[in-house]
């Protein structure tokens, strides 16, 4: 794993601005791709989640194909018409619907399908990809959400689940994200850090020794349990090594001045400022190649907050149980539009960042959508999900179309397989996939 930097400590990127110095990016690529001597910028993937479904009637375009007309909601993305495709008819066959959509959006799991568990998820697509592509970056992946943490089973606040089906806590504070990605830890001297790594190793060694003695005294099932422990200790040993190898690589310097790092999520603050600064941070993270995999939940299921700035008095969740009510559907529509306006901001940003010949957007695949379809009657079905795919043109993705599939015909996991391949990973399966998504490549 090559982790020698050519980044000059003093060079810095201008935070949310767009004046990014080209030579700098090139320098970074030669770092991150030193191993394969390939100067092509890397592929990235971003997953964006909106809770509680959308007003599907105003979301789905009337006709399929590349000459489709934007639906009222999608009008918000008019400026980026060529940069995205609408995917309709897809769903997660294993999902039960309701408000567990965030739990399964990226995992496609049958949460109640594992014998011996009331609830068990499986690895999410972002983590699946990060296991491989994450080896190149300081952070294999970044998990973001407005609520932060993990939430509870069935009401997840994170989209990311590890290989062991453990929810990975999401960060919701822009400042915390910024500190983690771009601020060098000055709390400890290098020598102190080095010592800590050595201590960790000694502790882990001692634990492995102890555990082996215990292993001999256990029955089969207990030994399987202890194996989980041993595997984890060994994996943490590897992570310690990895952290150690990044120790001398300074984090990219980024100017925080124009970033609204104190923005607060949902009704505790200005929602637009918050969503945009999170997008700013994602953009910076991709630009500086601190990670290539990002997930961000823009609200939490069965909540999602109040949108008083849009003149709505009911909260997002209440509106999702609209029962066909016209006013409530109109409220949902306003919320859907609002989120897409922020997405337009994000796409615009990615488009304006050049790396070499291409825009950052051309090598960034974005899946945006919800895990439920609060359909005509306000049911919470996991079928025919509202989905939008943007970016990744230089990764072989075909955009600017409405790809309409018959309900139940095609799993959403097909999109995941397409994205894996877009990342350059040779996989042809993810959970219930039946191939790549026809029309997207």
């Amino acid at each position, binding site marked *: 794993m090559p982790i020698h930097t050519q980044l000059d400590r003093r060079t810095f990127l201008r935070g949310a601005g767009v004046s990014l110095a080209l030579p700098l990016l090139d320098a970074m690529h030669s770092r991150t791709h030193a191993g394969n001597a390939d100067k092509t910028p890397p592929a990235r993937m971003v997953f964006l989640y909106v809770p509680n479904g959308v007003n599907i009637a105003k979301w789905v375009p009337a006709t399929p194909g590349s000459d489709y007309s934007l639906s009222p909601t999608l009008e918000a993305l008019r400026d980026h018409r060529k940069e995205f495709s609408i995917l309709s008819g897809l769903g997660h*066959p*294993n999902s*039960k619907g309701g408000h567990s959509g965030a739990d399964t959006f990226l995992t496609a799991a*049958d949460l*109640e*399908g*594992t*014998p*011996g*568990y*009331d*609830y*068990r998820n499986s690895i999410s697509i972002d983590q699946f990809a990060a296991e491989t592509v994450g080896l190149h970056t300081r952070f294999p992946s970044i998990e973001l959400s407005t609520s932060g943490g*993990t939430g*509870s089973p069935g*009401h997840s606040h994170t989209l990311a689940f*590890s*290989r*062991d089906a*453990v*929810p990975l*806590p999401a960060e919701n*504070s822009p400042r915390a994200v910024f*500190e983690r990605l771009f601020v060098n*830890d*000055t*709390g400890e001297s290098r020598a102190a850090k080095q*010592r800590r790594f*050595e*201590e960790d190793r*000694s*502790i882990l060694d*001692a*634990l492995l*020794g*102890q555990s082996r003695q*215990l292993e001999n005294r*256990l*029955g089969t*099932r*207990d030994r*399987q*349990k202890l194996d989980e*422990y041993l595997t*984890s200790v060994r994996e*943490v040993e590897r*992570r310690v090594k990895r952290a150690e190898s990044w120790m001398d690589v300074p984090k990219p310097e980024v100017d925080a001045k124009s970033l609204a790092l104190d923005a607060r999520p949902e009704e505790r603050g200005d929602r637009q400022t918050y969503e945009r600064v999170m997008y700013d941070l994602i953009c910076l993270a991709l630009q500086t190649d601190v990670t290539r995999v990002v997930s961000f939940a823009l609200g939490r299921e*069965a909540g999602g907050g109040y949108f008083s700035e849009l003149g709505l008095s*009911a909260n997002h*969740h*209440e509106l999702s*149980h*609209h*029962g066909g009510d016209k006013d409530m559907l109109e409220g949902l529509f306003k919320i859907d539009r609002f989120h897409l306006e922020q997405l337009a901001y994000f796409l615009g940003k990615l488009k304006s960042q050049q790396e070499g010949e291409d825009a950052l957007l051309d090598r960034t695949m974005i899946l945006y959508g919800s895990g439920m379809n609060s359909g005509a*009657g306000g*049911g919470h*079905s996991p*079928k025919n999900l509202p989905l939008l795919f943007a970016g990744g043109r230089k990764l072989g993705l075909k955009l600017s179309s409405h790809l309409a599939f018959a309900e139940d015909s095609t799993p959403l996991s097909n999109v995941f397989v397409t994205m894996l391949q877009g990342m350059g990973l040779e996989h042809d399966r993810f*959970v*219930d996939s039946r191939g790549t998504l026809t029309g997207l490549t």
Partner: protein
Amino acid sequence: MRLAFRPTTALATLVASSWFACGARSSVGSDRETANASAPALAPVFVPDAQAYRELVEPYFRRHCIGCHGPDAQEGEFRIDQLLPDLSERHVAEKWLEVVNRINKGEMPPADEPRPDAKQQDAVATWIAGELRRAAKIAQSTGGKIVLRRMNRAEYNNTIRDLIGMDFSPAADFPEDPPAFGFDNVGSALSISPLHFEKYLRAAREIVDRAIVSGERPKSFLWRLEVEQAHPSNQFPGRRSAGDFELWVDDPHTPRHRYLIKGGGRDVQDGWLRQTGGRGEGQAGFRWFKIPAPGEYVVRIRAAAHIPTRADVLRTATALKQAEYDRELTRLDSDQKRQQLRERWDRYVWPAFRRHLETYPDYDYGAPRMKVATDKGIIVGEVSVDAPRNEPHVYEFRYEFHPQPRELDGINVTNNYAIPREIENLSFGDNPGFARPELWIDWVELEGPVVADWPLPSQRRLLFDSPLRDNETSYAREVLDRFASRAYRRPATTGEIDGLLELLREVRASKPNFEEAIKIPLIAVLCSPHFLYLVEPSEPAENTLRELDEWELASRLSYFLWSSMPDEELFALARAGTMHDPDTLRAQVDRMLADPKSAAFVRNFTGQWLGLRQVGANPPGRDLFPRYDDHLETSMVGESEAFFAEILHHDLDVKHFLKSDFVVINERLARFYAIPDVKGDKFRRVPVDPQHHRGGLLTQASILTITSNGTRTSPVIRGKWILDNILGDPPPPPPPDAGDIAPKVPGINKATVRVRLEAHRQIAACASCHSKIDPLGFALENFNADGTWRDREGFGYKGRIDDQDPPIDASGTLPDGTTFATFEEFRELLLHREDEFLAALTEKLTTYALGRGIEYSDRPTLEEFRRAMKREGNSLRSLIRQIVTSRLFLTK
């Protein structure tokens, strides 16, 4: 429990091992054959129910299916005559599942074929569903063994508290623990992943760093804010709300740093700030100060309350309303219009207004709620302030500040008393002239780090005085031996201590002193499998149960009743070898339940049995249910816990869970339930009359809200809740695309939830299960989605109820033909199903006590528990005693 297999599930996503394990394993018997055997079978296998298959299912298939799915034709490449009733093979089970789904959805036989007899079809579908469940259950079986289990989060926190003597929730950011069989202490489901282990390592470092602090006693700092100190903040351009009163102050404790104090505003009088919980009012707090040293801080607030009476509410509201009336009157330009207005107000507006103010229960205000939070929104504490204005009180909160480098923090005080916005149509909603509970604040103080003793008590506990102290190696051995023997909940072995000493030697040279060096092996102890797991090593022979040793039993008992490690008394019993004595066990149950640590049992058991942990996950929407607020939410959980504790501690008949003539509530709930004369935040037993409609679990707001979907009641969820938790008869899962109920019913203007659901039941596929589920839920329809009692279902603006709305129909017919007309009648019927309830409770409690699912072979034992419990007046305590003295509990 839901079924383990679905036709659409990719095999790759399932954890196959446990499924195949039982099929492959040779076994001493089947779950059917061993049901009456005295020794539990260790690895049950699925024995096909050949008789029912032959008599019921096969004839049905021959008549309705085999024509297209048999030897002559194989539509969909499927032959039903080759589908055998051995569901232990997963691919076979998946086919059966598909069959039952097709039947239930009415897809098979197809519409153009002759209709099967509905009763017969129902019997076939029910049989298949039952067999699927039975097979799934056996597949999950651990053969009656309790699998090596790690501590869950609550147990980890409590154990650290008792081990180190510091209570600070180090497991707060550990991943959520996955529940199995309804509980999150089931070893087979509790796994450890790399993420867990990273957290364990980090938590262990933090724990020892907090527990052992070498060097000088840290200095303590004090900040103080007088609310009248701050000035209007519009002198700071760019700040959003010009109405705030703020002041930058040079931080006395950090050079060249300023912090911001917020306070005052219009509402400061004589140096006191008045907060009424309205928007945009004056705040009290500090922001952006630097914590000079991590540790425990104390927040002190001098505060008092003014609680207006209903008469005050009536008076102030009437005055405001009168002003509104006068304004409207002057706006009119003719006598005729003025006369019309007068008549309209006299006839409609004033009477409705007065009726609302006189009868709405929430105008019997309670004490204001003082909420203290950090800048990051973490709640330090919230209390009801009831000190009158002429006798102010200093309220104290404690909080651990452990900031990141460069991190700034703050303390904010607000009045979190929520007045329902029922009066939003009245023009004075936010008018300061309207009487509201007032919180008065004089000053706010922050002091810390608080160090009562130095060295810290935790340090003195770990690094105790000893004659060996001068000899570092001997002392280290003594320290590690004592610590590991408590952390591992049994005497540590010499080999283990040698290993830890070896670790100490490795790091000693790089550490400035012994205190820092000993931390490393202490961390290792806290990351050891002997600490993280409740280790009960097995006998070499796999298929035998062995008796727990003394130490293992002490741990099992303490994790059951305390969710924590054993205390000195239990350790002493283990050391003396008397733990197994049944009288000792019974005496310990009484002692342990009397200990405040048993609150963990109440919280963790009820949180999962009753689902209280879900309270607030999907709360009633604020718009539709304006009476729901933070204080109500915490009070709801408090009620159900306190109710359980009342029955447990006073050894009351558990039938009180079904019906009681008392409730255990605080003032907030009393107001919500319209029960008079309950003052203060403490939960206490209050007798209730029939007109209150309360008493028993099913009348508790906690249960009623978690079984609603946030916008309306859900009789299906409620019915299922009763079947799962009260009657112990969980219904099979719905078919994959069951869908939501129809929003509208053609031809009915105001279709109630019940009417809409009944439309759903017209569909034959749904009827068979829903006729069992729905009536139970209908019985609770008088309780709205927020738990309030209602006589009608509201169709007005934002769900408000008016006299024209359809009345609630809480009547129903149970599958056995019994009928009831009202909730109260239904509750009586439940009392007659006492045995089912006792069995359900027994199963839940035994699952929790053992940390494993109940096996078929456990049934006879559970039946004994139930009978014994009944003999002893349905006492929960007797059930606990039964469990802990049983073979199930005493063996591994």
